[in-house]
């Protein structure tokens, strides 16, 4: 189909930029407006664009339900892992300063915030994509 050529070419060009922007929003969360939720949604938007342009089957081949499940588990585990690390370092839950003080690395809290934001971003992205799979899919290979 002719009109698909335009859509496919444009989305092929746009998707990497959307993803870079998503990563920027996630990393920017440590010092300004932005963060895991927003970045995760933008990242998921790139997958939604791919689904519209290349079809569901194509995207599902790259990232299937099992992959989605693992991504969300990894995302939340990153977040909770750093939270519990702070507990181990005698701080409160998610107290970055406690980890920084215990390990003696200056400015570590900035990296930790980025890690936590990345974890949130991965989990949000995975959940958004799984919602799209469930809504746009025809019901097969669900759960």
């Amino acid at each position, binding site marked *: 189909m002719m009109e698909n050529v335009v859509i496919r070419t444009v989305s092929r060009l746009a998707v990497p930029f959307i993803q870079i922007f998503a990563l920027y929003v996630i990393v920017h969360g440590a010092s300004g407006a932005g963060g895991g939720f927003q970045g995760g949604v933008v990242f998921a938007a790139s997958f939604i664009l791919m689904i519209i342009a290349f079809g569901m089957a194509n995207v599902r081949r790259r990232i299937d339900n*099992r992959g989605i*499940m693992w991504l*969300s*588990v990894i995302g*939340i*585990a990153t977040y*909770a892992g750093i*939270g*519990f690390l*702070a*507990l181990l370092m*005698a*701080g*409160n*839950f*998610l*107290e*970055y*300063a*406690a980890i920084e003080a215990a390990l003696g690395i200056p400015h570590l809290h900035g990296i930790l915030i980025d890690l936590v934001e990345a974890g949130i971003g991965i989990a949000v992205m995975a959940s958004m994509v799984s919602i799209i799979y469930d809504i746009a899919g025809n019901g097969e290979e669900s*759960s």
Partner: protein
Amino acid sequence: MTIINHVPVLLVAIPIIASLLILAAGWYDRRFCYPIALITILSQFVASIAILLQVLDGGTIHYHLGNWAPPLGIELVIDSFNGFILVAILLLAAATIIYARRSVEKEIAPDKIVSFYVLFQLLVTGLVGMTITGDIFNLYVFLEISSIAAYTLIASSRKPHSYVASFNYLILGSIAAGFILLGIGNLYVATGTLNMAELAVMLPASYHLATIHSAFLFLMIGFSIKVAFFPLHLWLPDAYAESPSAVTVLISTVMAKVSVYALFRILFTVFTTAYIIDSFPVTGFILLMSTVAIVAGAVLAIAQEDLKRMLAYSSVSQIGYIMFALGVANEIALEGGLLHILGHAVMKGCLFMVAGMIIYRMGTSRLSDMKGLSKTMPISCAAFALAGASMIGIPPTIGFMSKYYLVLGAFEAGLWPYAAVLLIGSLLAAIYIWRFIEIAYFGDPHGADHNEEQTQTAEREGPLSMLAPMVGLAILCLLFGIFVEVLMQAVGPAALLLLGGA
């Protein structure tokens, strides 16, 4: 710093991890799901008792997430009020998870069992979070977590009508959440803070503002939908009657009580009695509506032909009793209301477990199919009778004690006609409870059309893992009533706290 200092955050963080573990374990073997959920909820229950004892001993616990002080950061607060609620809901959650295993095997498709336990765990997490948070927006987030889990759980039954029930609840629940969010937004506009304690300090300066009045009404209406306060109860009967038995037990006890808790918390801690009684007098209206709820819920319950639906309407009536305490708003009535939060959770949990057991054995919950049930299921019927007696308010059960305090509170406030309505509500409860007792104990099974089939399917009681929590809760109805002094040690300070003392 020992581990006990971190129990507040662990109460929320561990179950979230556990729900992920259940999900991951479910991909390898479905049988791992149940033990993880069981261990998590039981340990939450033990932790909640430890924390309540600590609160009663040493005062309110504040936990600052990330060690950021309250106006900036989010804090978890556990005082005698929500400590008490926390123990009550986790007791019921623990009983439900024990009950759930066999019931779920029967009522839910095998490929959905993994997601059932994940959502079950998330629902409990959300409700625990709602209970212990000290931040009003945090409350909204946990409310959404628990609501979304609940919508999905209600639809997990094999009956097609459960989708309709779930969709109804989804629409009404979303409207409620929208109202609550608007209310929170208005509060934030007026004060610039989302911390509950901070709000309580800053609000009196702007009690005259229309923003605050609209915020109050938004929150009031939103939470009234969530607790199913009488004219806004329409989602409740379907949601309770159509969902799987274990889910019914959980949402009718734990979830309903946490919504009531949130309403109390907003009205008494955020707005304080100065606002709801003097500045924006709303208690009189709540009192009036609660009496309507008590009578209308009970009358509707009498009219039902289905056991679960009857119990659902009875819940509407019993919510009226708790709201009655809110309307009277003096110390004795609030003690009665708090007792009734626990008492109603225990007895309604038991009654719904009996209903679930009957469905497990007979596959029906129509009252007319239960003639002579006491001969085949004597223990279930006895548990129903005991919890039912508590529902009516026969001494020495917990139901009697809570209603006694409510009536005393109404007398103290000089509200004689309203106290009479409480007694009428009890009489009506006696009618609908007696209907089941009469059918189960005095109904003639040989009069039924299909008694051959019935005696075959309903030969014996259900499995022990379903019987034990049911009987346990029935006995608790009695024990709580007899040893009410033990409960009063937690309820007394909680009622004082709500009124701004202590």
